[in-house]
């Protein structure tokens, strides 16, 4: 057999074409074969995240079954809300959140008590924050700092994450990760303002309630609740001027 000239133009082009077609076929087959399994993983991961906002330790537990048992996904006022019924019968609302950290996306879930005010638990995760600094938002010690705080403050639905010692309803930021901490704060506040009608509504998931109606309710409820809350949390807010806090955080 005559030896092929492996350096001829025709050979090179044919070689490259055949190679690319074979590789493309191979990758396409593998990718579509593994797709269902991968999607199941992504879905399971999401369920685990929702569950961990309920302070549930998932070690050695079947997250899939637990999720199905505890959580129902609902659309309330056109917003996605996960309603969880815990084993002791108490009802929690879990709201998904999305925001921006220092380097990339951050996201999380915030679980509220039945009163839609007290934080029951939180979960945060991130795409590319610095490990050991901004990446610490995934740790339990940061997430549990939110527990028991109230989202309804003197200025409406707002959380405040501050540098240094936290007072009253404030949450202490992660040292060395101010921008990521501020990102978490912004994420929470943006989400809360998005969910205003749900938060200040009466909690029923009646489909007939239009968003305009529930907005009116929102304003009314807020006015009723506000004075009382101001009294309660007056001290911490007076000791630290919001403007001052903002300035110190911006440093």
């Amino acid at each position, binding site marked *: 057999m005559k030896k092929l000239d492996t350096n001829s133009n025709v050979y090179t082009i044919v070689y490259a074409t055949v190679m690319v077609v074979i*590789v493309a076929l*191979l990758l396409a087959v593998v990718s579509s074969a*593994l797709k269902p399994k991968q999607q199941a993983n992504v879905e399971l991961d999401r369920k685990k995240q929702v569950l961990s906002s309920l302070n549930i330790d998932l070690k050695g537990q079947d997250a899939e079954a637990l999720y199905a048992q505890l959580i129902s996904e609902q659309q309330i006022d056109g917003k996605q809300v996960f309603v969880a019924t815990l084993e002791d019968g108490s009802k929690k609302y879990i709201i998904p959140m999305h925001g921006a950290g220092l380097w990339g996306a951050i996201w999380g879930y915030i679980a509220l008590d039945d009163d839609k005010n007290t934080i029951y638990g939180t979960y945060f995760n991130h795409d590319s924050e610095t*490990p*050991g600094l901004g990446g610490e938002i995934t740790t339990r010690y940061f997430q549990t700092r939110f527990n028991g705080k109230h989202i309804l403050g003197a200025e409406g639905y707002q959380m405040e994450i501050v540098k240094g010692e936290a007072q009253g309803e404030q949450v202490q930021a992660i040292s060395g990760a101010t921008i990521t901490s501020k990102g978490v704060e912004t994420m929470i506040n943006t989400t809360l303002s998005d969910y205003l009608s749900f938060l200040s509504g009466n909690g029923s998931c009646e489909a007939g309630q239009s968003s305009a109606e529930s907005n009116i309710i929102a304003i009314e409820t807020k006015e009723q609740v506000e004075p009382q809350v101001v009294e309660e949390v007056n001290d911490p807010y007076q000791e630290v001027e919001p403007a001052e806090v903002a300035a110190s955080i911006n440093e």
Partner: protein
Amino acid sequence: MKLSDKTRETLLGPLNVNNPVVVQVLGICSALAVTVQLKPALVMGIAVTIIVAMSNVIISLLRNTIPMRIRIIVQLVVVAALVTLVSEVLRAFAYDVSVQLSVYIGLIITNCILMGRLEAFAMTNGPWDSFLDGLGNGLGYAIILVIVAFFRELLGSGSLLGFQVIPQWCFEHGYVNNGMMMMPAMALILVGCIIWVHRSINKEEKK
């Protein structure tokens, strides 16, 4: 099984005297990125070993048919295809690890060890020798990763493979995890220390 001297050197040389990381100083970037904990370092080491060995074999089999002018492209396509396969398989069967390794699995494509072995060895040697060479170089890379990750996880988080190894009473008596170990710079310093130790041990052989 008895290995001939040449085969033994092909397989075991890269583990020590000819180590790709500490002697040839290749593949440093991923060594910095994935060694905060032991588990991703292990997976990364295994992934690179598999990919180097397999791409070495494939290129070695094709070596007489590859047109010289596009040989680098052919090598890249083979490596990229294998890396994509590994990353897909990880996403399907070890999702949490693949999230942890994130972009670094994809970046195996640019790992200098791979292209180096393909150009220097697989293009001129038979499939079996190339396989051993790939295995040796992959393991040589993995060993360094595991050593660095061992110290970084132990000193940085007080755990190994996720299990707490430094007892709680140490923390109660004022022991603190070294946050520096979490930073990529520490991996570079650790690799430097390994190179130092390695050079002092192999002083004569290097000459």
